[in-house]
């Protein structure tokens, strides 16, 4: 599979790999995908008191584009409000990474992950 330089860069030097405390009420966790499908993403975001995302961490089991999509996503969400983060579209991720058509589902998964993480925070904070 011929990947773009951006995918390879994110894959080889993934940004923001790690874990945040899932119990923290300012931390939202989105876990999407399934091992059987070959990709599972766990995205975590931490918001400050102004509702702005100040940190984001991920771990991903999946192909190079799944790892790159989640790595790029953590870069993009930092500094955004929850509402802004929810507006991120998979097509933007796919375009930025020049994903081949067969890998577009990886960016869909990343979009699902941020939506799930935001939902998690919103439900925690009522």
């Amino acid at each position, binding site marked *: 599979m011929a990947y773009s330089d951006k995918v390879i860069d994110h894959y080889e030097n993934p940004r923001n790999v790690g874990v945040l405390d899932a119990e923290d009420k300012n931390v939202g966790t989105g876990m999407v*995908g*399934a091992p059987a*499908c*070959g990709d*599972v993403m766990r995205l975590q975001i931490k918001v400050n008191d102004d509702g702005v995302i100040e940190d984001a961490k991920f771990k*991903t*089991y999946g*192909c190079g584009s799944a790892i790159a999509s989640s790595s790029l996503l953590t870069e993009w969400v930092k500094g955004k409000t929850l509402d802004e983060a929810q507006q991120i579209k998979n097509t933007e991720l796919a375009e930025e990474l020049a994903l081949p058509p067969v890998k577009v589902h990886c960016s869909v998964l990343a979009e699902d992950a941020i939506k799930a993480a935001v939902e998690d925070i919103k439900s925690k904070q009522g």
Partner: protein
Amino acid sequence: MQLPIYLDYSATTPCDPRVAEKMAECLTLEGNFGNPASRSHTFGWKADEEIDKARQYVADLVNANPKEIVWTSGATESDNLAIKGAAHFYKTRGNHLITCKTEHKAVLDSMRQLEREGFEVTYLDPEANGLIDIEKIKAAIRPETTLISIMHVNNEIGVIQDIAAIGELARANKIIFHVDAAQSAGKVDIDLSTLKVDLMSFSAHKIYGPKGIGALYVRRKPRIRIEAQMHGGGHERGMRSGTLATHQIVGMGEAFRIAKAEMHEDNARIVKLRDRLYDGVKDMEEVYLNGDLEQRVSGNMNISFNFVEGESLIMALKDLAVSSGSACTSSSLEPSYVLRAIGRNDELAHSSIRFTFGRYSTMEEVEFVISVMHEKVKKLRDLSPLWDMFKAGIDLDSVQWAAH
């Protein structure tokens, strides 16, 4: 040591230089370029002589008569010709065929086509080690069964089926037995004078010959008949028409000649490489060998590295040319059907890497592979949420996943 390291000998092999040299002699005006079917001049006669020699070399490797060798474009065509050809020819005798779920797609898709034409096919499940229980074949046989097709060596997991026993069973029941030997010829001893095999498919490019050429063995005693799939000039005794590709055939002949002379020496060396690789990685956590270790071809090692996904592992292994059972490396987005058939779950199928060694593999390369595997698997597990969960003692099967 040159990078990347080629570890995909089951996908294809480079031509042996001795093969390439022979082939080059059959192309230009100065060379042996004639049409072997030309009976009226020396150009044709000379080409025909070389074809005869090559046919003898192929027959010699498997202890057959050269008259039993039919040239084809490769093992895929041989499988098609054998299965459709025999099923069609003997359709008045019966319409039931038996094969196994881990066969090559050339066999499975030929069977599917026959099903569309009204034949009935039994697809047997192999055991967890990849081998077929002969009792299951016995139980599947019906009065109207005309053909059993079982591969000799599996292309993904390298297991060697007991074709001697299956052949006895087939012959006793007057059923034609086809064997796809694309992955075994030149690696495992084959003696068609004792094996009860009626049709056998061969490929040149898996044993240091060129791509685009193969052969089908069609037994003469007892005589097996097949219906031609390619019609034309009546070449190959009417079983496969088309001008013979002299350079390809000469290349295949030379490759088979070399294999007969050198396979035991090659095997003894290659099996050490394979065993060293296995010893070097088997003590890592959550590593699974796919396929039986004993009944296994010398050059194949197929291992699942749990909790890392195969395609990302292949990306990490950019200095190694290997293949994976992961969905992401296939155009269908399905994980390996072979690993699924031996009962591996999707995760392990996604996490599998096939290393296949050959004539030009070295121990230095294997040592490099071992150190790379340790380093990269650790890197990807550090990135894997599944590894975190496994380490935290969470049973992944108990998690409600959102399949997509």
